[in-house]
């Protein structure tokens, strides 16, 4: 195992995040704070509590998920797309490093960045709403796994993309709608019958539900399904990346 290679990629990617700290950290914190102001204070005051939790507090897990998922995808996809774009990927391909090591370097760096943002948002939330975390260990498990799995997904998007437009396409047209319709700002039990059923096809529902459960003990779906969803998604992404590196799809001629 070329651990040195993983560490080299990780450090190089983290250095990029530190160079662009405003874009990486300040910007998501600012936008999340705006969500708190708009949904928590302005609109939230007119919405009744959801199962005993104030609306402002109710949306915190969803907001963290929203940021963590989008940041994981954008960090990891950019991380691997940029070397492809500027051509420096030649070095990765000619290095004595396996696909697993290269992926680990980029994905761990992307996950660290989004996890940091998630934690910062969580801390920010304490200033806006009355927050409690019933199952802190599970909260960490869900948060870390979400960061990792969507960083893996972002890595796939970065390899798939052949231009900057495509890089934005999947997060904008697929992931963002799934997150917004995944119970981030509401419980799916609030939806009319048929839409509640339709929502169950949205994988993000399972993640938000499990994460929210770790905060308030309330869930749209059983915890087991949430865990299955996150582990299943992670496994699927690893399998796809393995296939990409074995076949050299879009990276090796």
């Amino acid at each position: 195992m070329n651990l040195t290679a993983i560490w080299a990629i990780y450090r190089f990617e983290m250095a990029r995040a530190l160079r662009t700290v405003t874009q990486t950290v300040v910007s998501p914190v600012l936008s999340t704070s705006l969500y708190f102001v708009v949904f928590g204070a302005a609109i939230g005051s007119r919405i009744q509590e959801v199962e005993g939790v104030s609306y402002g507090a109710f949306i915190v897990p969803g907001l963290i998920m929203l940021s963590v998922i989008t940041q994981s995808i954008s960090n990891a996809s950019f991380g691997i797309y940029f070397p492809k774009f500027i051509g420096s990927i030649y070095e990765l391909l000619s290095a004595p490093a396996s696909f697993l090591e290269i992926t680990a370097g980029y994905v761990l760096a992307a996950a660290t960045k989004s996890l940091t943002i998630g934690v910062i948002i969580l801390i920010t939330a304490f200033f806006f709403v009355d927050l409690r975390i019933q199952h802190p260990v599970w909260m960490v498990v869900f948060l870390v796994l979400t960061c990792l799995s969507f960083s893996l997904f972002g890595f796939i998007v970065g390899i798939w993309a052949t231009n900057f437009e495509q890089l934005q396409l999947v997060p904008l047209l697929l992931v963002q709608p799934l997150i917004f319709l995944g119970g981030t700002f509401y419980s799916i039990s609030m939806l009319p019958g048929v839409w509640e059923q339709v929502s169950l096809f949205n994988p993000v529902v399972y993640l938000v539900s499990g994460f929210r459960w770790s905060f308030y003990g309330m869930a749209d779906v059983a915890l087991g399904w949430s865990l299955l969803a996150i582990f299943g998604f992670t496994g699927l992404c690893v399998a796809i990346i393995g296939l990409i590196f074995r076949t050299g799809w879009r990276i090796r001629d």
Partner: protein
Amino acid sequence: MPAIVSVKNLTKRYDSGTHALKDVSLDIEDGEILALLGPNGAGKTTLISCICGIASATSGTVTVDGHDNVRDYRAARRLIGLVPQEINLEPFETVMNTVRFSRGLFGKAPDDAHLERVLRQLSLWDKKDSQVRALSGGMKRRVLIAKALSHEPKVLFLDEPTAGVDVGLRKEMWDTVSDLQKHGVTIILTTHYIEEAEAMADRIGVISGGEIKLVRDKAGLMRELGRKRFVIELGEAVDMLPAALKDYRLERAAGGCELVYTYDTQGDGTGIRRLLNDLSAAGITARDVRTEQSSLEDIFVDLVDGEGRS
């Protein structure tokens, strides 16, 4: 000398249908500088890409110091440094961090003292904290070399290292390359500058249309280049040469109006004066004479253009 890189029957067909390499076999000797000459699209970069693992070969094998570059890719790749043709660098990172990254990627423990030596050797030490984007084109090219040397490779591939580089820098690059050879690094460089191959290489290979047309040691090639042709234009065409001139191995040309005598400039004597005397004695009068010398470029053009030229 033993081969440090051995390419056997390498074939590469791209999905587009391009047959970039056709059954290429090549042994690269330990410690040598091999120049691969070839026109654009000859397959030089594809050959390097297949050896270094950037492209997968359709068939054939590559071993580096005995390690198969697919089955035992870690051991094989550890020995190779690659300087690509294009300047492919992360623009926002500093020079030092860029070379540190390369060393780590190749599994080597941090060694800033070695990196300092490399950067000093390439006159980049003063720029170690500069962002790559702030460097000149020549400096960026040297950063690429520094990256390749950061992990102490035994074999260095330089893909057109002086393309688009001014004369002064080109000479500097040649000095750097010979210096590396003195430190025991085997160097393979591709170029389409013939003088570059002449200046640096121990052996010269010519690649064209995905095939290796020739691999010869430069000294032998230069000896061949040292042969000159002495062309004698005759007053009258001759049909047959007198037996007395047999030893000169003269060739008749231009329908018998010219006689061509090939001689070695590095030999003891050219024999021209004797030939002229013997011609005169045989009653053949020369109207005019000229000498011709084939250059490496002529050989190269002949090989690349095919069989049509004489």
